[in-house]
């Protein structure tokens, strides 16, 4: 079983990386970009009997810093 963990900065938390990407896109002539937020995608290859609570615990304990980040778990196959 695979799980994808999407880690994103919470709304209202300044994202300087996203701002720089936004600026670069504007520099390439893409004027229609209103905002950019950058995050992380972490793919986990898991034992088939891994339960949801464990995946959530992985996010809470390590994969995301919940002071500044949100996470979303997407199970694949």
């Amino acid at each position: 079983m695979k799980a994808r963990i999407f880690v994103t900065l919470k709304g209202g938390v300044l994202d300087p990386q996203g701002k720089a990407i936004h600026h670069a896109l504007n520099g390439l002539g893409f004027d229609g970009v209103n905002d950019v937020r950058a995050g992380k995608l972490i793919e986990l290859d898991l034992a088939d009997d891994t339960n949801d609570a464990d995946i959530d615990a992985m996010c809470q304990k390590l994969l995301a810093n919940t002071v500044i980040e949100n996470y979303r778990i997407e199970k694949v196959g």
Partner: protein
Amino acid sequence: MKCAVIVFPGSNCDRDLAVAFESVTGAKPAMIWHGDTALPDDIDLIGVPGGFSYGDYLRSGAMAARSPVMQAVVQAAARGTFVLGICNGFQVLTETGLLPGALMRNADIHFVCRDVALTVENSQSAFTAKYSAGERVTIPVAHHDGNYFADDATLDRLEGEGRIAFRYAESVNGSARDIAGILNDGGNVLGMMPHPERMIEAAHGGIDGRRLFEGIVEGLLERA
């Protein structure tokens, strides 16, 4: 008086911190490797040094905070042992939860490496007892992720409880309320982005960092 400096793969200020500890205590600190699960007995002061522990993988300080030795550091801090986290060490301490908030990418994205002016906000802690409240000091910074973030309730609590030890007196990295260093609620844990260990001898270009280490020693002597 026994000191220890934690060494992670990627630490690069561990020896500087060891020199600073030795210069005020007269004794060489124990250098503790990250995989150790216990600290030597009777440690009075633990330094968590600057650098790029674990290559800053995932988030600055995130991997180090989950290393075996940091569990022992958290337990020691709970017993009242002094813990000083500098730069990456500050990031590690927030990731362990010993200090609130998080250190994010500098607001302007640039790595900042220069001497900066700081204001000493609180001279009540052992770490800052040799300074005067409101005093302006110069201590270098060298970091990419020094932009302190915490929610407003946490920031208000830090202010109200006198737990902001140092503030930047100039624009440096976008930190909330210009926070450069904070204390835990017991006053025995300090995390700060600037590097006091790089300003302890005249040959360093200044000695404003030295009093921080002298203050810890005096605090420990008062406890004994």
